[in-house]
């Protein structure tokens, strides 16, 4: 089982060697990145098959868990590690083929992202989170236009503040508990973290890691960065990295801070995110920013789903998160050719019907039109929210319903704009999608359709993952082993 460390080590090795070797070895250097990603996804698949669904852990450096750092491999971690490699492979930015440094940044991001999914140590999660954000600074600033650089700078400042808050949170936790291993912390949390100090630490870490998870107060950077960065990088950031940040928060929530106030806090932040995101998206007048605001709204929805107490909440949250993981990158890839204001895109649907068809499919799934998985995810969330006897949860459900109406309006305002007839719209200047530019969207669309057809097995599997995530005792016994004497 120790081979899982390769998932973090190999891309890192590739990243270190790429800037050195790229000039001399030419195309081998270019292919090194995708090859490594293929290798890591194979490793994850093999390990997943062997583990057969039973969570296990590995000790890095061979030291006993509470002292050393451990990687915890349950279904959730493995699925996100696999998703990281596959999605990065699918969305390999065009700049990465030309410039070895961008390829190195991508490899760093992938290794840190899978590290974040797997790691079972508080400070280690922070280091991987920091590596992901520094790598994303590089990828976002890659276009080197004035706007991209300014947007990245504002992003660096707000991430810097997030770092400070996360560090303070970790310091508080360490002062109180004296350990960093999540399993050990879970044992101690009942006695030490179940008070205002625990909540303060949670709030600080939530804001710290929330920068990447596009939580309400700290997602000011999202529209600027997604509008200026290259679309595939935005796809990766919006689709994958934000989910990983949320998964980290949820793992901390489930293991260390099971207090109800934390859940209501998540709900309030999520609700504000949904409301502001969807309203701003309705107001946006160009495609990228509409997608950026819609991703803020969707992530607010993910947070609200996770804020439902108990296993139902985790199940609904995972469903919405996985659905957004598939749909948003595909939409951003569509934005590669269809970037810019809506006026310029009037009638673009006639010239590239496949792209328009894909957009309609993804829009329907985002809104939650039945047979598509988006509907089941939203239904689970709403039933969960309305199932609580608490008026805040009911207002949350109301906000989701209101936001869906706005979502339907702005998505199909753009969708129908694609088919606006009229002579000038058929002119040459309308951007056209061809097979090359649609590749990733087509694959993700196929995945969505497969999930639609096999909704019951996918649902049961997700319920299994949610059960494992919700089970704190399983986590502690797997990592620390039953009955071990602890320092």
């Amino acid at each position: 089982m120790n081979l899982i460390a390769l998932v973090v080590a190999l891309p890192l090795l590739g990243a270190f060697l790429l800037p050195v070797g790229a000039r001399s070895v030419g195309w081998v250097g270019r292919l090194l990145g995708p090859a490594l990603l293929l290798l890591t996804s194979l490793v994850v698949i093999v390990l997943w098959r062997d583990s057969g669904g039973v969570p296990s852990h590995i000790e890095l450096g061979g030291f006993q868990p509470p002292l050393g750092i451990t990687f915890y491999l349950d279904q959730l971690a493995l699925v996100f590690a696999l998703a990281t490699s596959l999605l990065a492979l699918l969305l390999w930015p065009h700049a990465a083929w030309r410039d070895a440094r961008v390829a190195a940044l991508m490899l760093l991001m992938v290794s840190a992202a899978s590290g974040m999914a797997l790691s079972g140590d508080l400070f280690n999660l922070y280091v991987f989170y920091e590596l992901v954000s520094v790598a994303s600074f590089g990828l976002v600033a890659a276009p080197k236009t004035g706007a991209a650089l300014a947007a990245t700078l504002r992003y660096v400042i707000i991430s810097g503040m997030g770092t400070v808050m996360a560090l303070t949170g970790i310091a508080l936790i360490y002062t109180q508990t004296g350990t960093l291993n999540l399993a050990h912390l879970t044992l101690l949390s009942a006695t030490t973290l179940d008070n205002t100090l625990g909540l303060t630490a949670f709030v600080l870490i939530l804001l710290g890691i929330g920068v990447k998870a596009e939580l309400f107060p700290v997602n000011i950077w999202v529209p600027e960065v997604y509008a200026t960065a290259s679309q595939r990088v935005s796809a990766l950031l919006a689709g994958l990295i934000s989910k990983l940040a949320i998964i980290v928060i949820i793992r901390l929530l489930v293991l260390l801070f099971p207090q109800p106030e934390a859940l209501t806090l998540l709900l309030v932040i999520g609700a504000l995110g949904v409301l502001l995101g969807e309203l701003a998206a309705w107001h946006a007048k160009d495609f990228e920013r509409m997608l950026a605001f819609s991703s803020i709204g969707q992530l607010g929805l993910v947070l609200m789903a996770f804020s439902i107490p108990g296993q139902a909440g985790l199940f609904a949250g995972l469903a919405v998160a996985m659905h957004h993981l598939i749909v948003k990158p595909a939409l951003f890839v569509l934005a590669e050719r269809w970037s810019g204001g809506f006026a310029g895109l009037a009638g673009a649907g006639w010239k590239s019907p496949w792209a328009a068809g894909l957009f309609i499919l993804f829009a329907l799934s985002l809104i939650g039109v039945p047979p598509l998985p988006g509907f089941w995810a939203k239904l689970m969330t709403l039933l969960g929210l309305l199932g609580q006897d608490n008026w805040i949860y009911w207002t949350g459900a109301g906000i989701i319903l209101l936001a869906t109406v706005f979502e339907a309006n702005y998505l199909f305002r753009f969708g129908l704009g694609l088919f606006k007839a009229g002579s000038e719209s058929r002119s040459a200047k309308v951007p056209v999608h061809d097979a090359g530019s649609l590749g990733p969207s087509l694959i993700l669309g196929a995945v969505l359709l497969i999930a639609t057809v096999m909704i019951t097995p996918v649902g049961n599997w997700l319920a299994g993952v949610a059960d494992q995530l919700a089970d704190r005792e399983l986590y502690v016994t797997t990592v620390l082993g039953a009955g071990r004497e602890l320092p």
Partner: protein
Amino acid sequence: MRNLTSPLFAAGLAFFLLVVVAEFEPGAAPMVVGQAILQEAPETTGTANIVTAVVLGYRGIDTLGEIAILFTASLVAGLVLERRGGKRQAQAPAGNVLRISTQLLFPLMLVIGFYIILHGHLTPGGGFQGGVILAAAFFLPLLARPGIQVRHFGLAVTEGLAGSAFIVIGLIALFQGGAFLQPLFGTGSPGQLLSAGSLPILYLVLGLKVGAELAGLLAHLVYEGSET
């Protein structure tokens, strides 16, 4: 609006943190894991400096993450600052005093740097501190003779090789059946220069990498354009 609210909010945050912090009993860190490491570290890793044992042994992946962050930071700084064939500002030639003192200081700083790196597992200090000193050492000639070309390619190669060496050592442990980044070659006798198995090698490699990276970073900052 900003000038009023920011001090207010900062004061509020400080107040809450103080209220929360006041509950800790003074100066008595629980040291739940710390005490166990202090007992166990000398035997398992064989280092005198327990912090090095923690940095490279117990929390090795943290340090790997750390040098990756530094590598990314200097990579991005290079990516952003580099411009092909940028004009070289005509800088005033440094005075004689600076030139001569740099010639004197350069070997001295190299010695100090390597000393600190190699004794990382015995005395305080190690890869990071030594690497910074090496970077400063490489930076001095730039101050002395502003016009000289910086061998960026050389720096990049050392940086890449050192980083991959760090990982390769970890992988060797993995492929020998142990865990990733497991200390190798036994522990040797504590207190000796050649003790603590693979840790000193890791620190050496780390020092070289940090040194090369920061030198590259400083070079990028100094020059407008630079050939790579």
